[in-house]
């Protein structure tokens, strides 16, 4: 009896807000007020001028009239203030257990450091663009100071409880509404970001997006969203495609961004094909771009271009199939002798294959070999597609919006990408996909279980190549000309980097990874020279902090963070339920005796 009594009195203490190791907890109260002061500074900053001259960022030189970027800063400030003030406003009803839906303290910490990063990047951009610290007006200083104060002060706040929002019982329509809202936000962000011409504005906006996602994750909104997305997978997929489909409508017939978008889609489609080979079957292919090239060259040779060397131009759907088949046959040719090696050796062989392809295309010029590709000149002047009377080269008015040439191709590519994703997921969730993953995990064990290792590897190679060939066929028409030097090793490396960055073996992750890798260099022309350096740094940083990729497979996440506390907690219940019975031995009856 005494024992149970002491347990009850202990309970409030042990659930109190003081995890060990947080030395500054006793300052939590004043710290909150100091942080609020900082937040007020952040909120005031947008109404002051940040820069001396108008040509930095999106003109932040006015007093009292915030530019969009300044409004975003204001929103960050509101977020910060809201997280700080919320505990005063939201009190548990007397006699009820607190619901703890959102982790406000974590949100405040994230919002504070996020604002600091945001102001730092914006200020750095101003300083760089206008030449010196003099260009910084009081607004920037106020924002920096406020964010810094808030950041330091929020460190003293306790970490608090885990957000429980994802366990909230939301009706299905609420979940779908949330998904649609989030996806619409993504569309807005993409359209707005791509609309920014200034590289510094683009970067600052990108930082804002990152900060927003981070805060949402810490506060618990992300957890709810991903739970809702997991439960309404179909709605998520539909919403994502609807948004991708609507994207050209936001561009007012301008082709500048659409050409980038088409490039991103082609890259993503190719990466998705490679994802079968690398992500599922675990075969590192460093020459994959050759299959895209094979598809492109096939489509170019079979096109109506005056420079096409065969003089036979079947309709495009047939060309697509032929391009895919040619690429797949190449995949079989390179695969059947080399798939007996694996790991690093396979990587080297495929790398060499990629180079062989490029050099061969260079040499099929009528001098060193038959004239098929016109050598390094390639095949230019590939005419636009015309499918079912729809001319892809023309602008069309659809629903009162001008849809230009690249927007047409964008929709075609979206269709191709959707097909490739469908093939990927259907294969992944089948006997074939399980066989691939088994081979990736343990080839010999898979073989001993009757998995047709060689056949499946070959299928992965040929299937991936087929998909890349299809993407290549469209690419030939988008690019107008096809030359061997578009298909260099660097492109293969970027494809692999995109997959690793996003999360191997996933659909969403690879789409995001590929988009980032393709989009950034397009928007940030000025760091063209440092592109490789930046990607190298990015990959090293990723490998250090998030080796499983941005949007990992659940499996992968566990693989890399098996001894991580938070994740361990998540899976803890499962494991506990499992380990304890198997450990159950002599001590069990003793404990029961005490309880009674």
């Amino acid at each position, binding site marked *: 009896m005494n024992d149970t009594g002491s347990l009850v009195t202990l309970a409030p203490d042990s659930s109190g807000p003081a995890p060990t190791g947080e030395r500054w907890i006793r300052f939590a109260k004043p710290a909150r007020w100091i942080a609020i002061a900082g937040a007020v500074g952040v909120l005031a900053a947008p109404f002051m001028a940040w820069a001396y001259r108008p040509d930095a960022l999106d003109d932040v030189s006015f007093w009292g009239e915030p530019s969009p970027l300044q409004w975003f800063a204001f929103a960050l400030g509101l977020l910060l203030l809201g997280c700080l003030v919320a505990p005063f406003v939201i009190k548990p009803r007397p006699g009820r257990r607190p619901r703890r839906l959102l982790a406000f303290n974590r949100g405040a910490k994230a919002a504070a450091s996020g604002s600091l990063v945001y102001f730092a990047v914006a200020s750095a951009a101003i300083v760089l663009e206008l030449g010196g610290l003099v260009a910084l007006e009081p607004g920037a200083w106020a924002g920096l100071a406020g964010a810094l104060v808030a950041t330091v002060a929020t460190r003293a706040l306790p970490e608090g409880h885990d957000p429980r929002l994802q366990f909230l019982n939301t009706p299905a329509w609420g979940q779908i509404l949330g998904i649609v809202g989030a996806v619409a936000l993504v569309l807005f962000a993409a359209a707005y970001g791509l609309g920014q011409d200034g590289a510094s504005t683009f970067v600052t906006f990108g930082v804002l997006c990152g900060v927003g996602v981070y805060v949402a994750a810490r506060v618990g909104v992300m957890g709810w969203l991903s739970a809702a997305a997991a439960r309404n997978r179909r709605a998520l997929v539909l919403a994502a495609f609807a948004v991708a489909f609507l994207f050209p409508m936001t561009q007012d017939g301008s082709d500048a961004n659409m050409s980038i978008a088409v490039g991103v889609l082609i890259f993503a489609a190719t990466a998705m094909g490679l994802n079968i080979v690398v992500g599922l079957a675990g075969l590192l292919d460093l020459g994959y771009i050759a299959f895209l090239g094979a598809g492109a060259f096939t489509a170019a040779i079979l096109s109506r271009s005056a420079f096409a060397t065969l003089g036979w131009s079947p309709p495009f759907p047939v060309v697509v199939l032929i391009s895919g088949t040619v690429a797949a046959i190449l995949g079989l040719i390179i695969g059947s002798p080399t798939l007996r090696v694996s790991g690093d050796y396979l990587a080297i062989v495929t790398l060499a294959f990629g180079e062989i392809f490029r050099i061969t295309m260079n040499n099929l010029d009528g001098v060193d070999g038959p004239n098929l590709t016109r050598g390094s000149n390639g095949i230019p002047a590939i005419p636009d597609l015309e499918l079912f009377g729809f001319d892809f080269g023309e602008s069309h008015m659809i629903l009162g919006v001008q849809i230009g040439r690249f927007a047409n191709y964008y929709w075609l590519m979206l269709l191709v990408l959707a097909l490739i994703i469908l093939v990927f997921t259907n294969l992944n969730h089948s*006997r*074939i996909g*399980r066989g691939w993953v088994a081979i990736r995990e343990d080839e010999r064990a898979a073989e001993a*279980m*009757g998995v047709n290792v060689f056949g499946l590897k070959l299928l992965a190679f040929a*299937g991936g190549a087929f998909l890349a060939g299809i993407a290549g066929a469209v690419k030939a028409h988008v690019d107008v000309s096809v030359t061997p030097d578009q298909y260099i090793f660097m492109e293969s490396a970027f494809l692999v980097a995109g997959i690793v960055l996003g999360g191997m073996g996933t659909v969403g992750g690879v789409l995001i990874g590929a988009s980032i890798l393709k989009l950034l260099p397009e928007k940030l022309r000025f760091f063209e020279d440092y592109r490789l350096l930046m990607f190298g740094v990015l990959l090293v940083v990723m490998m250090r902090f998030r080796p499983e990729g941005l949007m990992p497979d659940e499996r992968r996440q566990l693989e890399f963070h098996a001894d991580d506390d938070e994740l361990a907690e998540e899976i803890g219940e499962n*494991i506990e339920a499992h380990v304890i019975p198997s450990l159950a031995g002599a001590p069990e009856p003793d404990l029961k005796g005490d309880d009674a």
Partner: protein
Amino acid sequence: MTALLSARDVTMKFGGLTAVNQVSLDVAPGEIVGLIGPNGAGKTTFFNCLTGMYQPTSGEVEFDGQLLPPKPRRVAMAGVARTFQNIRLFQNMTALENVMVGRYARTGTNAIDAVFRLPRHRREETETRRIAEEWLDFVGLGEAADLLSRNMPYGDQRRLEIARALALEPKLLLLDEPTAGMNPQETREAEELITRIRGLGMAILVIEHDMRFIFSLCDRVACLVRGAVLIDGAPETVQNDPRVIEAYIGTPVDVAPSADGEGDSDA
């Protein structure tokens, strides 16, 4: 009675080393045969020869009236499933997925079926899942279906590997040290599991060092020493054979202490 598996004069040489030397062994349908022998006797190498992982230097293996080709996949399809001495699960797949891979050789969905989600794919997928769940339940891991196999306790990983092998619906199950590294409790559970597998009418060939396990479970025991079969017979015969004792713990100075020594090492 015709043997289910019959290995005839299987020899495996690695360069100058003869790991397995003219080993002949029969396993009758429904029989549990134990394979014992000191470390390095060639037991696992013999297993690898049986399952096609190694191509024997000479000799042949007949299974169910047909010669087994030295291809692991063909051996598996013929109906021989195995587990590994050091567990070889697909670590980043869930327990259920691991067992579903075991169904690979017994299903026929091809890429076309899967891409277009044809009826055959769906039918087989439901069927595969159901059977895999049944085998998980059979080995007592029904609750752990969604755990990653790498996060499972050691004893459960061993049982999962057996479930994966069982999903192949083999006629002969080869178990390579199923109780290695287990505590007495887990060993007892494994023993019970293998008895239940025998109840299904499957023949089992098991390598094991736990003598109590072997002698209480097996219908017949073969002892392998330095690559050759020393003795092949009823458990009692093998247990009391002085050559077996000698192979395991060396030549006794006199008979009485060696018997004591055996008792100690067992306890």
